[in-house]
């Protein structure tokens, strides 16, 4: 009887405590793939977002209220993302949502957040339609086209390579990168010799490698994620193809270097995180992330970390949880983050510099920065 009463009392007090604590917390929704094929990126994104929440809360939260991340696994699947977005808005009552997920699920969730007039920030999903969902949707990553144009400048102007083969990952990420690259190619004197496509499930590129070899290009522009790009780069190099290979933020992980091994040396990518940055925000982020996650930092972690900081800064500025004020505060963002100073254009697309990183001695390092505002202008509609 005594035990029962004690337990009951404990249960009641725990409930009361959490009840009180939750009333004061500011809830941010976070959909992220924690199982399925995108689980690796999801795990990094979650670590990045959690780190940002910890950093904000360690500094006293938002006007004394603690941030709380409400996390759901969307398996990078649109059909999971829709009920999750509804649950976050209706059941959890989040003040805003952040996507730590891929384009398919982010696009599906964006419409739901827009309809409910709750702000939604895509951390690294790149499909152009995401921000077109409406004025409450923002993105802290480049759309594919912008990064593709940066790739063209890097190859045609900065490296001076003109005969280029494009190897495209056949999904919205790879396709929009290729589109941006081809759009700007002529401007930098690039001749696209040929273009090959592969599916996200491919890990063996033997036929493409053989054909690229016979094309004898000056450089290769290849889109992909670390798990496709690692095998691809390694197979290109082991077939004796020595020309520069240029990738993008999908490569941006230590895993890429592990998979490609020695073949990764000298690979260039356009991305958003500068490993050798002297900016305090970036340096702190890199060391804190590595301490928390136990592995090297990657682009998705930095993007999720940035999205949470954008949300936190807007919450502080809006001075409350009013959705309209919060939206306006996000739209007016001008913030120094772990990926540099960012702001949003009228469509909610991020405006920032492109970082070029290069693999040297088994690590990503600074190569150069592309800060050509006209070239990097994101779409406005």
């Amino acid at each position: 009887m005594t035990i029962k009463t004690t337990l009951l009392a404990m249960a009641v007090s725990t409930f009361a405590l959490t009840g009180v604590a939750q009333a004061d917390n500011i809830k941010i929704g976070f959909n992220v793939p924690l199982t399925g094929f995108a689980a690796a990126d999801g795990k990094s994104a979650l670590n990045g977002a959690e780190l940002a929440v910890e950093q904000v809360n360690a500094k006293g939260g938002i006007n004394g209220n603690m941030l709380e991340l409400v996390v759901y696994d969307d398996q990078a699947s649109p059909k999971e993302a829709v009920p999750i977005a509804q649950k976050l808005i209706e059941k959890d009552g989040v003040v805003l949502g952040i996507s730590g997920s891929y384009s398919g699920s982010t696009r599906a969730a964006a419409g739901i957040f827009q309809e409910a007039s709750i702000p939604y920030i895509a951390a690294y999903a790149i499909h152009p339609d995401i921000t077109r969902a409406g004025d409450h949707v923002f993105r802290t990553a480049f759309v594919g086209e912008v990064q593709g144009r940066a790739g063209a400048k890097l190859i045609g102007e900065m490296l001076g390579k003109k005969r280029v083969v494009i190897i495209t990952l056949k999904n919205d990420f790879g396709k929009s990168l290729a589109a941006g690259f081809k759009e700007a190619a002529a401007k930098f004197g690039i001749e696209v010799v040929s273009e090959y496509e592969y599916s996200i499930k491919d890990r063996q590129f033997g036929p493409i490698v053989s054909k690229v070899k016979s094309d004898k290009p000056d450089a290769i522009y290849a889109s992909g994620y670390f798990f496709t790009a690692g095998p691809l780069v390694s197979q290109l190099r082991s077939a004796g193809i020595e020309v520069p290979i240029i990738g993008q933020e999908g490569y941006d992980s230590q895993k890429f270097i592990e998979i490609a091994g020695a073949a990764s040396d000298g690979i260039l990518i356009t991305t958003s995180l500068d490993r050798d940055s002297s900016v305090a925000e970036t340096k702190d982020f890199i060391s804190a992330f590595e301490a928390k996650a136990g592995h090297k930092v990657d682009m998705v972690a930095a993007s999720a970390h940035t999205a949470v900081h954008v949300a936190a800064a807007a919450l502080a500025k809006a001075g409350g949880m009013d959705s309209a004020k919060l939206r306006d505060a996000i739209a007016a963002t001008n913030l120094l983050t772990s990926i540099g100073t960012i702001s949003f254009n009228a469509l909610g697309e991020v405006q920032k510099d492109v970082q070029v990183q290069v693999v040297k001695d088994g690590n990503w390092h600074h190569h150069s920065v592309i800060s050509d505002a006209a070239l990097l202008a994101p779409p406005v509609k």
Partner: protein
Amino acid sequence: MLYVELTIQGIVQGSIYALIALGLTLVYGLLRILHVAHAALFTLGGYIGVIVTNQTGSLTLAIVAAAIIVGLVGMAVYKLAYEPLLSQPPYIALIASIALFIASEELYRIIFGPYGLSYTVQPMSGHIELFDGFRLKYVEILVISMSVVILSVLGYLSLHSRMGIAWRATVTDPSMAQAFGVNIQNVRYLNFFIGSALAAIAGVLVALLNNFVEPTMGSVASYKALAIIVLGGLGSIRGTLLAAMLLGVIESFGTIYLGHLIDRDALAFAFLILVLMVRPQGLLGAK
């Protein structure tokens, strides 16, 4: 020259397909079960291969360990998942198999982590230079020669060993074989052991080719191996081998010349449909 290279790439890929699909066709021939979870054993083989190589530095040991461990796991899959369902219609076992496969992907993710694994020092990373700058990688030579040797030895044993004869008798007529004193249970265990060990070896080889294993590594193998055994003529071993090689070569050329129209994976099924329209029993299947 390009055609030669593409053909060789196709044969490398076809050898991998053959090793994977053979286990599947063995199970189908014996039990009439579509063993989708076979691809999960292929993934497990890849993981064991990378882990053992990284720990001991010996690729040979890794291949042997992967084959034996995964072979035993394959026997356990039969004992625990399929044997209790043998009296049920075959689709019940198929559902169990699909469930097992999905669960295994998540299990690998939980055990080995979501990021996948690579060899710390990639074995067999060299190559020989053949002609006109054409390179054949050691790994590719290993893939082709291992599948040729393994499949020839198995073919010989099935014709000339007691166990092989018992196995063929059981496939042809289980009750008659039993009446002649063949222990059907042992034949089934052996069948699962060999089929799973082959998948494990394929897993180690794919891990070598890509320097990467990941939880979802079996997802393509799961349905493509099904397409191959249907293409070959369900249960026909020679048909399976032929289909595996043909598909490897067709994919190799298709990736380059049809890549803009049709996905590499869709190619397998387009080819499958074409063949089935002409030969509903598959390439070498019995009518």
